[in-house]
Protein backbone atom coordinates (compact mmCIF):
# COMPACT_ATOMS: atom_id res chain seq x y z
CA UNK A 1 0.00 0.00 0.00
CA UNK A 2 1.26 3.49 -0.86
CA UNK A 3 1.57 5.66 2.24
CA UNK A 4 2.30 8.71 0.11
CA UNK A 5 1.04 9.48 -3.39
CA UNK A 6 1.60 12.68 -5.34
CA UNK A 7 -0.22 13.27 -8.60
CA UNK A 8 0.23 16.08 -11.11
CA UNK A 9 1.62 18.46 -8.48
CA UNK A 10 2.46 22.02 -9.48
CA UNK A 11 3.97 24.78 -7.35
CA UNK A 12 5.68 28.13 -7.88
CA UNK A 13 6.84 31.26 -6.10
CA UNK A 14 5.39 34.62 -7.23
CA UNK A 15 4.24 33.23 -10.55
CA UNK A 16 7.57 31.47 -11.29
CA UNK A 17 6.99 27.72 -11.51
CA UNK A 18 9.35 25.60 -9.39
CA UNK A 19 7.67 22.20 -9.62
CA UNK A 20 5.71 20.95 -12.63
CA UNK A 21 3.65 17.80 -12.95
CA UNK A 22 5.33 16.00 -10.04
CA UNK A 23 4.45 12.31 -9.62
CA UNK A 24 5.74 10.34 -6.62
CA UNK A 25 4.77 7.26 -4.64
CA UNK A 26 6.24 5.59 -1.59
CA UNK A 27 5.14 2.29 -0.09
CA UNK A 28 5.09 1.28 3.57
CA UNK A 29 8.59 0.28 4.64
CA UNK A 30 10.20 1.65 1.49
CA UNK A 31 13.37 3.75 1.42
CA UNK A 32 13.24 6.28 -1.41
CA UNK A 33 15.85 8.92 -2.24
CA UNK A 34 15.57 12.28 -3.93
CA UNK A 35 18.55 13.80 -5.68
CA UNK A 36 18.65 17.37 -6.86
CA UNK A 37 20.98 20.31 -7.02
CA UNK A 38 20.76 23.36 -4.76
CA UNK A 39 17.53 25.28 -5.35
CA UNK A 40 15.95 22.44 -7.36
CA UNK A 41 12.93 22.38 -5.02
CA UNK A 42 13.59 19.40 -2.71
CA UNK A 43 12.78 21.33 0.47
CA UNK A 44 9.73 22.90 -1.17
CA UNK A 45 8.50 19.43 -2.16
CA UNK A 46 8.91 18.24 1.45
CA UNK A 47 7.10 21.34 2.73
CA UNK A 48 4.23 20.54 0.38
CA UNK A 49 4.06 16.95 1.64
CA UNK A 50 4.05 18.22 5.24
CA UNK A 51 1.34 20.79 4.41
CA UNK A 52 3.57 23.73 5.29
CA UNK A 53 2.82 25.01 1.78
CA UNK A 54 -0.18 24.59 -0.50
CA UNK A 55 0.24 23.35 -4.08
CA UNK A 56 -0.89 25.48 -6.99
CA UNK A 57 -2.39 22.38 -8.59
CA UNK A 58 -2.45 18.63 -8.06
CA UNK A 59 -3.06 16.26 -5.18
CA UNK A 60 -1.03 14.84 -2.30
CA UNK A 61 -2.38 11.81 -0.49
CA UNK A 62 -0.45 11.42 2.76
CA UNK A 63 -1.83 8.48 4.78
CA UNK A 64 0.77 8.62 7.54
CA UNK A 65 -0.44 9.02 11.11
CA UNK A 66 2.91 9.58 12.79
CA UNK A 67 5.08 11.67 10.54
CA UNK A 68 8.56 12.98 11.31
CA UNK A 69 10.32 15.66 9.27
CA UNK A 70 13.94 16.63 9.68
CA UNK A 71 14.52 19.99 8.04
CA UNK A 72 17.82 21.38 6.79
CA UNK A 73 18.01 24.14 9.38
CA UNK A 74 18.26 22.85 12.93
CA UNK A 75 18.69 25.47 15.63
CA UNK A 76 17.89 24.11 19.08
CA UNK A 77 17.48 26.66 21.89
CA UNK A 78 21.12 27.39 22.84
CA UNK A 79 20.55 27.40 26.61
CA UNK A 80 19.14 23.88 26.66
CA UNK A 81 21.16 20.72 26.92
CA UNK A 82 20.78 18.44 23.93
CA UNK A 83 18.77 15.85 25.89
CA UNK A 84 16.36 18.64 26.94
CA UNK A 85 16.13 19.89 23.35
CA UNK A 86 15.56 16.29 22.25
CA UNK A 87 12.82 15.85 24.84
CA UNK A 88 11.23 19.13 23.71
CA UNK A 89 11.19 17.96 20.11
CA UNK A 90 9.87 14.49 20.85
CA UNK A 91 7.14 16.00 23.04
CA UNK A 92 6.03 18.15 20.11
CA UNK A 93 5.49 15.15 17.84
CA UNK A 94 2.15 13.29 17.74
CA UNK A 95 3.95 10.01 18.49
CA UNK A 96 4.29 8.10 21.73
CA UNK A 97 7.94 8.97 22.22
CA UNK A 98 10.57 6.73 23.77
CA UNK A 99 12.44 8.24 26.73
CA UNK A 100 16.17 8.89 26.83
CA UNK A 101 16.99 5.50 28.42
CA UNK A 102 14.97 3.62 25.80
CA UNK A 103 16.72 5.55 23.03
CA UNK A 104 20.13 4.72 24.47
CA UNK A 105 19.37 1.02 24.79
CA UNK A 106 18.05 0.92 21.23
CA UNK A 107 21.17 2.66 19.94
CA UNK A 108 23.35 0.29 21.98
CA UNK A 109 21.82 -2.61 20.03
CA UNK A 110 23.04 -0.99 16.81
CA UNK A 111 26.43 -0.11 18.29
CA UNK A 112 27.64 0.42 21.88
CA UNK A 113 30.01 3.19 20.72
CA UNK A 114 27.13 5.01 19.02
CA UNK A 115 25.08 4.86 22.21
CA UNK A 116 28.06 6.25 24.15
CA UNK A 117 28.61 9.12 21.67
CA UNK A 118 24.89 9.96 21.67
CA UNK A 119 24.88 10.02 25.50
CA UNK A 120 27.89 12.36 25.53
CA UNK A 121 26.24 14.81 23.13
CA UNK A 122 23.02 14.62 25.18
CA UNK A 123 24.83 16.16 28.17
CA UNK A 124 26.23 19.10 26.20
CA UNK A 125 24.56 22.48 25.86
CA UNK A 126 23.22 23.04 22.35
CA UNK A 127 25.34 26.21 22.10
CA UNK A 128 28.51 24.10 22.60
CA UNK A 129 27.69 21.46 19.97
CA UNK A 130 29.03 21.42 16.44
CA UNK A 131 26.71 21.53 13.44
CA UNK A 132 27.40 17.83 12.74
CA UNK A 133 26.69 16.82 16.35
CA UNK A 134 23.34 18.65 16.34
CA UNK A 135 22.39 17.17 12.99
CA UNK A 136 23.38 13.61 13.97
CA UNK A 137 21.67 13.85 17.36
CA UNK A 138 18.33 15.03 15.97
CA UNK A 139 18.40 12.67 12.99
CA UNK A 140 18.94 9.67 15.26
CA UNK A 141 16.31 10.93 17.72
CA UNK A 142 13.70 11.37 14.97
CA UNK A 143 14.50 7.94 13.57
CA UNK A 144 13.59 6.37 16.92
CA UNK A 145 10.17 8.01 17.28
CA UNK A 146 8.18 5.05 15.89
CA UNK A 147 7.05 7.15 12.92
CA UNK A 148 5.35 5.63 9.90
CA UNK A 149 6.66 8.27 7.47
CA UNK A 150 10.09 9.86 7.95
CA UNK A 151 11.15 12.73 5.72
CA UNK A 152 14.82 13.67 5.93
CA UNK A 153 16.20 16.74 4.18
CA UNK A 154 19.93 16.21 3.71
CA UNK A 155 20.52 14.45 7.04
CA UNK A 156 24.15 13.58 6.32
CA UNK A 157 25.30 17.04 5.17
CA UNK A 158 28.20 18.15 7.38
CA UNK A 159 28.21 14.89 9.34
CA UNK A 160 31.40 12.83 9.94
CA UNK A 161 31.74 9.35 8.33
CA UNK A 162 31.10 7.49 11.61
CA UNK A 163 27.81 9.25 12.30
CA UNK A 164 26.91 9.06 8.57
CA UNK A 165 27.28 5.29 8.81
CA UNK A 166 25.03 5.17 11.90
CA UNK A 167 22.43 7.49 10.36
CA UNK A 168 22.08 5.10 7.43
CA UNK A 169 21.97 2.19 9.85
CA UNK A 170 19.17 3.99 11.72
CA UNK A 171 17.30 4.71 8.50
CA UNK A 172 17.45 1.06 7.43
CA UNK A 173 16.37 -0.11 10.90
CA UNK A 174 13.38 2.25 10.81
CA UNK A 175 12.42 0.86 7.41
CA UNK A 176 12.79 -2.71 8.69
CA UNK A 177 10.30 -1.81 11.44
CA UNK A 178 7.80 -0.63 8.83
CA UNK A 179 8.52 3.08 8.42
CA UNK A 180 8.66 4.66 4.98
CA UNK A 181 11.62 6.98 4.51
CA UNK A 182 11.97 9.75 1.95
CA UNK A 183 15.43 11.23 1.96
CA UNK A 184 16.96 14.13 0.02
CA UNK A 185 20.67 14.42 -0.60
CA UNK A 186 23.32 15.77 -2.94
CA UNK A 187 25.43 12.68 -2.50
CA UNK A 188 24.61 10.51 -5.51
CA UNK A 189 26.61 7.57 -4.23
CA UNK A 190 24.93 7.26 -0.84
CA UNK A 191 21.47 7.57 -2.39
CA UNK A 192 22.08 5.00 -5.12
CA UNK A 193 23.85 2.65 -2.71
CA UNK A 194 21.34 2.76 0.16
CA UNK A 195 17.91 3.55 -1.32
CA UNK A 196 15.69 0.93 -2.94
CA UNK A 197 14.91 3.44 -5.69
CA UNK A 198 15.25 7.16 -6.17
CA UNK A 199 14.11 10.25 -8.04
CA UNK A 200 16.09 13.05 -9.62
CA UNK A 201 14.53 16.49 -9.25
CA UNK A 202 15.74 18.71 -12.07
CA UNK A 203 14.22 21.22 -14.43
CA UNK A 204 11.06 21.38 -12.29
CA UNK A 205 10.31 17.67 -12.74
CA UNK A 206 10.88 14.40 -10.89
CA UNK A 207 12.40 11.54 -12.84
CA UNK A 208 12.21 8.04 -11.33
CA UNK A 209 15.10 5.55 -11.31
CA UNK A 210 15.43 2.00 -10.03
CA UNK A 211 19.23 1.92 -9.87
CA UNK A 212 22.42 3.93 -10.31
CA UNK A 213 23.12 2.02 -13.51
CA UNK A 214 19.82 3.09 -15.01
CA UNK A 215 20.54 6.69 -13.93
CA UNK A 216 23.93 6.70 -15.69
CA UNK A 217 22.59 4.98 -18.77
CA UNK A 218 19.67 7.33 -19.25
CA UNK A 219 21.90 10.38 -18.87
CA UNK A 220 24.76 8.98 -20.99
CA UNK A 221 27.27 9.19 -18.15
CA UNK A 222 30.23 7.14 -16.93
CA UNK A 223 29.83 8.11 -13.29
CA UNK A 224 26.94 8.94 -10.96
CA UNK A 225 28.13 12.51 -10.53
CA UNK A 226 28.33 12.97 -14.29
CA UNK A 227 24.77 11.65 -14.57
CA UNK A 228 23.73 14.14 -11.87
CA UNK A 229 25.33 17.01 -13.80
CA UNK A 230 23.85 15.91 -17.11
CA UNK A 231 20.39 15.57 -15.54
CA UNK A 232 20.62 19.01 -13.98
CA UNK A 233 21.47 20.99 -17.14
Amino acid at each position, binding site marked *: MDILTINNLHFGYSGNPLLNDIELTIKAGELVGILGNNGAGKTTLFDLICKIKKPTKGAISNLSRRQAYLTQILTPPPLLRMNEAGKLITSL*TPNVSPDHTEILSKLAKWSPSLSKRYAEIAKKKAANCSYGEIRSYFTLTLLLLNSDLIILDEPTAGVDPEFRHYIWLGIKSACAEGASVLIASHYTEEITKNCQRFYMLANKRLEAFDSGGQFMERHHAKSLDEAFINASV
Partner: protein
Amino acid sequence: MNPNHCIRSAKKITTITKILTTEHLREPTSLLWSALAPCILFIITQPTHAASTYTASAAWFYSYISATLAFFGFSFYLIGRRESGFTRSFIYQHSAIKLFLTAHTLSYFLLSSLYATLFYLLTKPLRGHYSLPEYLYLMACFYTSYLMFTCIGLGIAALPIKFSTASTLFSLMSFLMLVSGYTGATLGHDASHTLTLINPLFLSAQIFHGEMPLLNSFLTALSASAASTYLTGRYFRIQPIWSRY
Protein backbone atom coordinates in the same frame (compact mmCIF):
# COMPACT_ATOMS: atom_id res chain seq x y z
CA MET B 1 -12.17 12.71 22.89
CA ASN B 2 -10.04 9.65 23.71
CA PRO B 3 -9.03 9.78 27.44
CA ASN B 4 -5.62 8.21 26.67
CA HIS B 5 -4.97 10.93 24.14
CA CYS B 6 -5.90 13.59 26.73
CA ILE B 7 -3.56 12.07 29.33
CA ARG B 8 -0.73 11.86 26.78
CA SER B 9 -1.28 15.48 25.72
CA ALA B 10 -1.32 16.62 29.36
CA LYS B 11 1.98 14.80 29.99
CA LYS B 12 3.52 16.37 26.89
CA ILE B 13 2.34 19.85 27.91
CA THR B 14 3.83 19.35 31.39
CA THR B 15 7.17 18.25 29.91
CA ILE B 16 7.31 21.15 27.43
CA THR B 17 6.29 23.68 30.13
CA LYS B 18 9.06 22.39 32.39
CA ILE B 19 11.68 22.66 29.63
CA LEU B 20 10.59 26.15 28.53
CA THR B 21 10.58 27.39 32.15
CA THR B 22 14.06 25.92 32.75
CA GLU B 23 15.31 27.58 29.59
CA HIS B 24 14.01 30.97 30.69
CA LEU B 25 15.48 30.67 34.18
CA ARG B 26 18.91 29.97 32.68
CA GLU B 27 18.90 33.44 31.08
CA PRO B 28 20.70 35.62 33.67
CA THR B 29 20.05 38.99 31.96
CA SER B 30 16.32 38.35 32.02
CA LEU B 31 16.40 37.56 35.74
CA LEU B 32 18.50 40.66 36.39
CA TRP B 33 16.46 43.19 34.40
CA SER B 34 12.97 41.78 34.85
CA ALA B 35 13.15 40.53 38.43
CA LEU B 36 16.01 42.04 40.40
CA ALA B 37 16.40 45.54 38.85
CA PRO B 38 12.84 46.65 39.84
CA CYS B 39 13.42 45.36 43.40
CA ILE B 40 16.69 47.28 43.70
CA LEU B 41 15.13 50.47 42.28
CA PHE B 42 12.17 50.21 44.67
CA ILE B 43 14.52 49.78 47.64
CA ILE B 44 16.74 52.72 46.54
CA THR B 45 13.81 55.07 45.92
CA GLN B 46 11.91 53.90 49.01
CA PRO B 47 12.38 57.17 51.02
CA THR B 48 10.79 59.26 48.22
CA HIS B 49 7.48 57.34 48.31
CA ALA B 50 7.40 56.38 51.97
CA ALA B 51 4.28 58.49 52.58
CA SER B 52 2.04 56.55 50.18
CA THR B 53 0.70 53.02 50.59
CA TYR B 54 2.72 49.99 49.46
CA THR B 55 0.24 49.24 46.64
CA ALA B 56 0.35 52.84 45.38
CA SER B 57 4.17 52.95 45.53
CA ALA B 58 4.67 49.57 43.91
CA ALA B 59 2.00 49.81 41.18
CA TRP B 60 4.37 51.12 38.48
CA PHE B 61 6.96 48.51 39.40
CA TYR B 62 4.51 45.62 39.10
CA SER B 63 3.27 47.10 35.82
CA TYR B 64 6.84 47.32 34.53
CA ILE B 65 7.55 43.68 35.45
CA SER B 66 4.36 42.50 33.74
CA ALA B 67 5.14 44.53 30.59
CA THR B 68 8.74 43.27 30.44
CA LEU B 69 7.68 39.65 30.83
CA ALA B 70 4.88 39.93 28.27
CA PHE B 71 7.02 41.76 25.70
CA PHE B 72 10.59 40.54 26.13
CA GLY B 73 9.65 37.10 27.44
CA PHE B 74 6.34 35.74 26.20
CA SER B 75 6.11 37.49 22.82
CA PHE B 76 9.77 37.93 21.96
CA TYR B 77 10.38 34.21 22.55
CA LEU B 78 7.85 33.36 19.80
CA ILE B 79 9.68 35.65 17.37
CA GLY B 80 13.07 34.30 18.46
CA ARG B 81 12.11 30.68 17.93
CA ARG B 82 10.55 31.53 14.56
CA GLU B 83 13.54 33.51 13.30
CA SER B 84 16.04 30.88 14.49
CA GLY B 85 14.23 28.31 12.33
CA PHE B 86 13.18 26.14 15.29
CA THR B 87 9.47 26.71 14.63
CA ARG B 88 9.95 25.89 10.96
CA SER B 89 11.64 22.61 11.91
CA PHE B 90 9.52 21.33 14.78
CA ILE B 91 6.31 23.34 15.28
CA TYR B 92 4.57 23.24 11.92
CA GLN B 93 1.77 20.73 12.57
CA HIS B 94 -1.51 21.88 14.15
CA SER B 95 -1.06 19.47 17.07
CA ALA B 96 2.48 20.74 17.76
CA ILE B 97 1.35 24.39 17.57
CA LYS B 98 -1.41 23.70 20.11
CA LEU B 99 0.96 21.87 22.48
CA PHE B 100 3.64 24.53 22.17
CA LEU B 101 1.36 27.54 22.67
CA THR B 102 -0.39 25.93 25.64
CA ALA B 103 2.93 25.05 27.29
CA HIS B 104 4.42 28.46 26.47
CA THR B 105 1.40 30.25 27.99
CA LEU B 106 1.60 28.06 31.11
CA SER B 107 5.33 28.57 31.40
CA TYR B 108 5.00 32.36 31.37
CA PHE B 109 2.07 32.20 33.78
CA LEU B 110 4.42 30.44 36.22
CA LEU B 111 7.31 32.80 35.50
CA SER B 112 5.23 35.95 35.83
CA SER B 113 3.80 34.67 39.13
CA LEU B 114 7.35 33.90 40.29
CA TYR B 115 8.70 37.35 39.37
CA ALA B 116 5.77 39.19 40.99
CA THR B 117 6.04 37.04 44.12
CA LEU B 118 9.78 37.66 44.29
CA PHE B 119 9.17 41.42 44.08
CA TYR B 120 6.56 41.22 46.85
CA LEU B 121 8.78 39.12 49.12
CA LEU B 122 11.80 41.41 48.68
CA THR B 123 10.06 44.80 48.89
CA LYS B 124 7.13 44.36 51.24
CA PRO B 125 9.21 44.11 54.47
CA LEU B 126 10.25 47.74 53.86
CA ARG B 127 6.60 48.77 54.28
CA GLY B 128 5.16 46.47 56.91
CA HIS B 129 4.29 42.81 57.35
CA TYR B 130 3.37 40.33 54.64
CA SER B 131 -0.37 40.07 54.14
CA LEU B 132 -2.07 37.26 52.19
CA PRO B 133 -5.13 39.33 51.10
CA GLU B 134 -2.83 42.13 49.92
CA TYR B 135 -0.61 39.64 48.09
CA LEU B 136 -3.60 38.02 46.36
CA TYR B 137 -4.99 41.43 45.35
CA LEU B 138 -1.61 42.47 43.92
CA MET B 139 -1.27 39.19 42.05
CA ALA B 140 -4.74 39.62 40.53
CA CYS B 141 -3.85 43.17 39.42
CA PHE B 142 -0.46 41.99 38.18
CA TYR B 143 -1.93 39.15 36.13
CA THR B 144 -4.58 41.47 34.64
CA SER B 145 -1.79 43.79 33.59
CA TYR B 146 0.31 40.91 32.23
CA LEU B 147 -2.61 39.60 30.13
CA MET B 148 -3.19 43.09 28.73
CA PHE B 149 0.46 43.37 27.67
CA THR B 150 0.46 39.87 26.10
CA CYS B 151 -2.25 41.08 23.67
CA ILE B 152 0.02 43.91 22.48
CA GLY B 153 3.02 41.54 22.40
CA LEU B 154 1.17 38.90 20.36
CA GLY B 155 0.09 41.63 17.94
CA ILE B 156 3.75 42.51 17.40
CA ALA B 157 4.75 38.83 17.17
CA ALA B 158 2.22 38.42 14.35
CA LEU B 159 3.94 41.07 12.23
CA PRO B 160 6.31 39.96 9.43
CA ILE B 161 9.38 41.41 11.15
CA LYS B 162 12.88 40.11 11.77
CA PHE B 163 14.36 39.43 15.20
CA SER B 164 16.33 42.69 15.31
CA THR B 165 13.33 44.77 14.19
CA ALA B 166 11.16 43.13 16.86
CA SER B 167 13.78 43.88 19.50
CA THR B 168 13.87 47.55 18.45
CA LEU B 169 10.08 47.75 18.43
CA PHE B 170 9.71 46.28 21.93
CA SER B 171 12.48 48.53 23.27
CA LEU B 172 10.86 51.56 21.63
CA MET B 173 7.48 50.69 23.13
CA SER B 174 8.99 50.29 26.59
CA PHE B 175 10.83 53.60 26.25
CA LEU B 176 7.73 55.47 25.04
CA MET B 177 5.69 54.05 27.93
CA LEU B 178 8.39 55.14 30.36
CA VAL B 179 8.63 58.67 28.88
CA SER B 180 4.85 59.04 28.82
CA GLY B 181 4.62 57.81 32.41
CA TYR B 182 7.42 60.09 33.58
CA THR B 183 6.06 63.24 31.90
CA GLY B 184 2.57 62.40 33.15
CA ALA B 185 3.87 62.15 36.70
CA THR B 186 6.15 65.21 36.66
CA LEU B 187 4.23 67.67 34.45
CA GLY B 188 0.72 66.81 35.61
CA HIS B 189 -2.15 66.62 33.15
CA ASP B 190 -1.14 69.08 30.44
CA ALA B 191 0.51 68.38 27.08
CA SER B 192 1.13 64.75 27.87
CA HIS B 193 -2.44 64.09 29.08
CA THR B 194 -3.73 62.25 25.97
CA LEU B 195 -0.50 60.30 25.62
CA THR B 196 -0.64 59.30 29.29
CA LEU B 197 -4.22 58.09 29.01
CA ILE B 198 -3.35 55.66 26.20
CA ASN B 199 -0.16 54.52 27.91
CA PRO B 200 -0.72 50.83 28.80
CA LEU B 201 1.66 51.21 31.75
CA PHE B 202 -0.50 54.05 33.11
CA LEU B 203 -3.67 51.99 32.56
CA SER B 204 -2.05 49.10 34.38
CA ALA B 205 -1.10 51.33 37.35
CA GLN B 206 -4.73 52.54 37.44
CA ILE B 207 -5.85 48.95 38.04
CA PHE B 208 -3.52 48.68 41.04
CA HIS B 209 -4.74 52.05 42.35
CA GLY B 210 -8.33 50.76 42.18
CA GLU B 211 -9.31 53.47 39.70
CA MET B 212 -10.33 50.81 37.21
CA PRO B 213 -12.58 47.95 38.43
CA LEU B 214 -10.39 44.88 38.88
CA LEU B 215 -12.95 42.18 38.00
CA ASN B 216 -14.09 43.87 34.79
CA SER B 217 -10.50 44.65 33.81
CA PHE B 218 -9.41 41.08 34.50
CA LEU B 219 -12.26 39.53 32.49
CA THR B 220 -11.63 41.93 29.59
CA ALA B 221 -7.88 41.24 29.64
CA LEU B 222 -8.44 37.47 29.92
CA SER B 223 -10.90 37.41 26.99
CA ALA B 224 -8.61 39.58 24.84
CA SER B 225 -5.55 37.50 25.68
CA ALA B 226 -7.40 34.22 24.99
CA ALA B 227 -8.61 35.58 21.65
CA SER B 228 -5.11 36.80 20.75
CA THR B 229 -3.59 33.43 21.64
CA TYR B 230 -6.24 31.62 19.59
CA LEU B 231 -5.56 33.87 16.59
CA THR B 232 -1.80 33.37 17.03
CA GLY B 233 -2.32 29.60 16.89
CA ARG B 234 -4.73 29.85 13.97
CA TYR B 235 -2.42 32.03 11.87
CA PHE B 236 0.86 30.84 13.38
CA ARG B 237 3.87 32.19 11.50
CA ILE B 238 6.12 29.21 10.80
CA GLN B 239 8.65 30.46 8.28
CA PRO B 240 11.39 32.83 9.42
CA ILE B 241 11.02 36.22 7.76
CA TRP B 242 14.60 36.05 6.42
CA SER B 243 13.91 32.68 4.75
CA ARG B 244 13.64 32.50 0.99
CA TYR B 245 10.77 30.09 1.54
